[in-house]
């Protein structure tokens, strides 16, 4: 508990924050006779100084002397006494717990200690410099909103609030990370979310025991059920519209301070194949694109392995003319087919990584350098055959067609596994590895939901989730929410009223 002696409180504060040069503190006399001492403390640059100076200090220092507070009021009702002095800010609270007060200072609030009072006032003055709402870099769409989440938790909750003006939209705030004390908010629709899923999510988030949460990706990994699986079990997005759509489906959005990405749970493979703009355009074209995405997903994992299995072990399937060309192209290549594909694939992965690290203007050049020069040069030097370049390029392009990069990572790793098995055992190895990956995916769960839902266990929701899987049904036909929603609130669209 705080002491009523201001000096004692100051000493405690200075002890706690010793060697913190960014702590700004000032002892100020207030009152008609300037005989009441207060002590202000905040972290420089974490606060909005305009709020502090105009809406708090100004009233305290200018107006309060006209109506000096009685000392006994400061003891018994500090908050009302001082706020009556004219704070023009609403977010004010009182606390006598030093830990809470210090935490508030670290979070960007300003704390006022008053001599003679056993509690202090916390005023929300958060206003650190931030990026502001900008366009999304990682999930670009042709049609739809362009705004993206930012590093500010409050900004992020605001972006979802703007889209869902429902009192049932809850923002449950927690703090996780023993040292970072990162503010985390769970957003959900109270009546739409499944209570069991919410409870489980809360349990998992609260059970995170780590010193620091620097990004929402930490949370996504720590709450995953199967920590060995390369496949993501929580969705990560930068788009507020995607997050809002997830909330409307009964899913939970977890947003963390200092992270422009939010986590959405539960997540199934099908949710990773859905992009935001799937619902902004006609169902016909979007169904076609959805099918292409699934095909791209399968190809990105299976194509190199299948090529090796067929070309090296079972070339009878390849048409005669093509096989002669392929055999001819490989005449001068010194490497076996498997090694050729591995070399090209690893080169492609390196180019991809290099492209990510390079500054904006140069990243386009990597595409030109990699694709045209390195690929062409390798073929002309006889290091690889043209077909290998095509296979690897096609595999890479298929990976780019998948909307969520976290799923692509899982597929990329599976690709190597399938490739190696195919190289060893041909078509048997290919199918054995595919079956192993499928078994793993089938046994994976995300907060109790099968990862491959509705391809498996689709009958549980009477196959209605199939309307938004391989193809997208017309919006008028998608009357029910997906399986994630509470069965009591699973209708989202009613029949249009006639007349």
């Amino acid at each position, binding site marked *: 508990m705080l002491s009523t002696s201001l000096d004692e409180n100051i000493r405690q504060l200075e002890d706690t924050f010793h060697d913190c040069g960014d702590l700004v503190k000032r002892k100020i006399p207030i009152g008609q006779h300037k005989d009441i001492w207060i002590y202000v403390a905040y972290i420089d640059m974490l606060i909005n100084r305009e709020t502090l100076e105009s809406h708090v200090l100004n009233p305290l220092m200018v107006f309060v002397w006209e109506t000096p507070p009685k000392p006994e009021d400061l003891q018994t009702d500090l908050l009302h006494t001082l706020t009556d002095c004219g704070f023009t800010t609403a977010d004010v609270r009182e606390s006598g717990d030093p830990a809470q007060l210090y935490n508030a200072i670290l979070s960007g609030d300003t704390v006022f200690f008053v001599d003679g009072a056993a509690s202090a006032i916390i005023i929300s003055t958060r206003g650190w410099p931030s990026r502001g709402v900008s366009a999304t870099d990682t999930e670009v769409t042709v049609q739809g909103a362009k705004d993206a989440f930012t590093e500010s938790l409050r900004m992020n909750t605001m972006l979802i609030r703007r889209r869902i003006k429902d009192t049932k939209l809850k923002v449950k705030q927690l703090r996780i990370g023993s040292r970072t004390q990162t503010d985390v908010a769970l957003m959900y629709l109270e009546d739409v979310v499944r209570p069991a899923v919410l409870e489980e999510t809360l349990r998992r988030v609260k059970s995170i025991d780590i010193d620091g949460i620097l990004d929402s990706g930490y949370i996504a990994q720590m709450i995953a059920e199967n920590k060995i699986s390369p496949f993501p079990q929580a969705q990560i997005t930068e788009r507020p519209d995607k997050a809002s759509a997830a909330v409307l489906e009964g899913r939970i959005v977890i947003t963390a301070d200092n992270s422009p990405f939010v986590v959405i749970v539960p997540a199934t493979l099908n949710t990773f194949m859905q992009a935001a703009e799937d619902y902004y355009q006609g169902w016909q074209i979007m169904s076609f694109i959805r099918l292409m995405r699934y095909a791209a997903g399968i190809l990105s994992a299976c194509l190199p392995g299948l090529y090796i*299995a*067929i070309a090296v*072990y*079972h070339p*009878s*399937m390849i*048409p*005669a003319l093509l096989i002669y060309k392929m055999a001819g192209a490989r005449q001068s290549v010194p490497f076996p087919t498997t090694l050729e594909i591995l070399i090209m694939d690893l080169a492609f992965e390196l180019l991809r990584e290099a492209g990510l690290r390079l500054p904006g203007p140069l990243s386009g050049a990597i595409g030109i350098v990699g694709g045209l020069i390195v690929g062409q040069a390798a073929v002309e030097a006889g290091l690889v055959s043209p077909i290998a370049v095509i296979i690897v390029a096609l595999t890479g392009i298929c990976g780019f067609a998948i909307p969520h990069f976290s799923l692509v990572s899982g597929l990329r790793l599976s690709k190597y596994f399938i490739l190696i098995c195919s190289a060893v*055992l*041909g*078509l*048997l*190895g290919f*199918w*054995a590895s595919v*079956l*192993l990956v*499928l*078994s793993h995916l*089938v*046994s994976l*769960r995300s907060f*109790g*939901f*099968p990862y*491959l839902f509705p*391809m*498996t*266990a*689709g*009958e*549980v929701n009477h196959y209605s989730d199939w309307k938004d899987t391989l193809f997208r049904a017309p919006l008028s036909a998608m009357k029910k929410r997906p399986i994630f929603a509470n069965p009591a609130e699973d209708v989202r669209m009613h029949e249009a009223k006639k007349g």
Partner: protein
Amino acid sequence: MFSLNQKISVRQLQVLSILHVFGAGIIMLPRQAAAYGGQDAWIIVLLAACAALIFTYLMATVGRKFPADSFVSMTARLLSAPVGKCLAVLLALKLILSCGLALRLFSDILRQTMMRNTPCFVVCAAMGAVGAYTAAKGYETRARMAQILFPLILLPVLIVFCLAAFEADFSNLKPVFSTPPRDMFMGVFRSSAAFNGLELILLIHPYARRPDGVRKGLMQAMIFSGVLMALITGITIARLGAIDVTRQLWPVLEMMGLIDLPGSFIDRQDALVMSFWILSTFAVVNCELFFSALLFKDTVGKGKHAYYIIACLAAILVISFLPLSAERVNQIQTWLYSTLDVGFMAVLPILLLAAAKIRKIGGA
């Protein structure tokens, strides 16, 4: 709803049973049926499916009376604990033998058609390991895998056989009903071996979410399987002729290789055909591994299911490595069917139903 209780829906049960029966039987069935019935082989298959339907009804009725009991506990209640355990061990050994022979056959086909130099043990071990991994994940995982594999296995087969129907000469099925009754009966008896996964119906009721719907669901699945297999047999004979069918070990695979896919530049579809065969064998191996391990676990009463799977896998691999020719494997499979399969599919359910009636135990 999606709790980890290993319960599956009736639909998933149907898919599992269709895949198991189809995968175990379709490769050799037309040859077995044609050996007795010639061009009437498709009728033999239909009649065999009717027999399988009767067996299914009997076994599902038994299971319905004891929906929560495992095979061991059910037979123990009806016939006494030692008898129950003996039957469980016998069934488990039968499954291990059957699986080992199926793997052996699979390895032979694969090595003869695609991978001549790859050692038998590598092929068997690879397929066994994949089957064991899935079996160890539990019954729900198996059911979900089956839902994924169902279109992958059946759709290409249906497409190929629809195309084959266009090229087939259906006059090869004439004259109809010209097979003597004795040959017909023997053909039905032997061809019923193609439905040799059915005895597992006695084990599946504890895994069903709605045990009362299992009987109807499985009957529907058997009708589907029977009709499909009869169609495939008929089209195979129409395309190849009865004599050719009896001369080939795997007429269905041969026939699939003969089809010209329209608009396609793929000349030989051996690899496509073998893909279907690999997936079918996987369905059979993981089913028999799962249940054999389960039976041993229930008999012993302790230990993890996964450990029993490993032990059963080892036994299966040893059997598959034995130096047996395809004809010898066929002989052993025929013997297995004539004795143990018929015993578990026909005799045991009747015995159990009679015991339940006499002792007045078991639900409706």
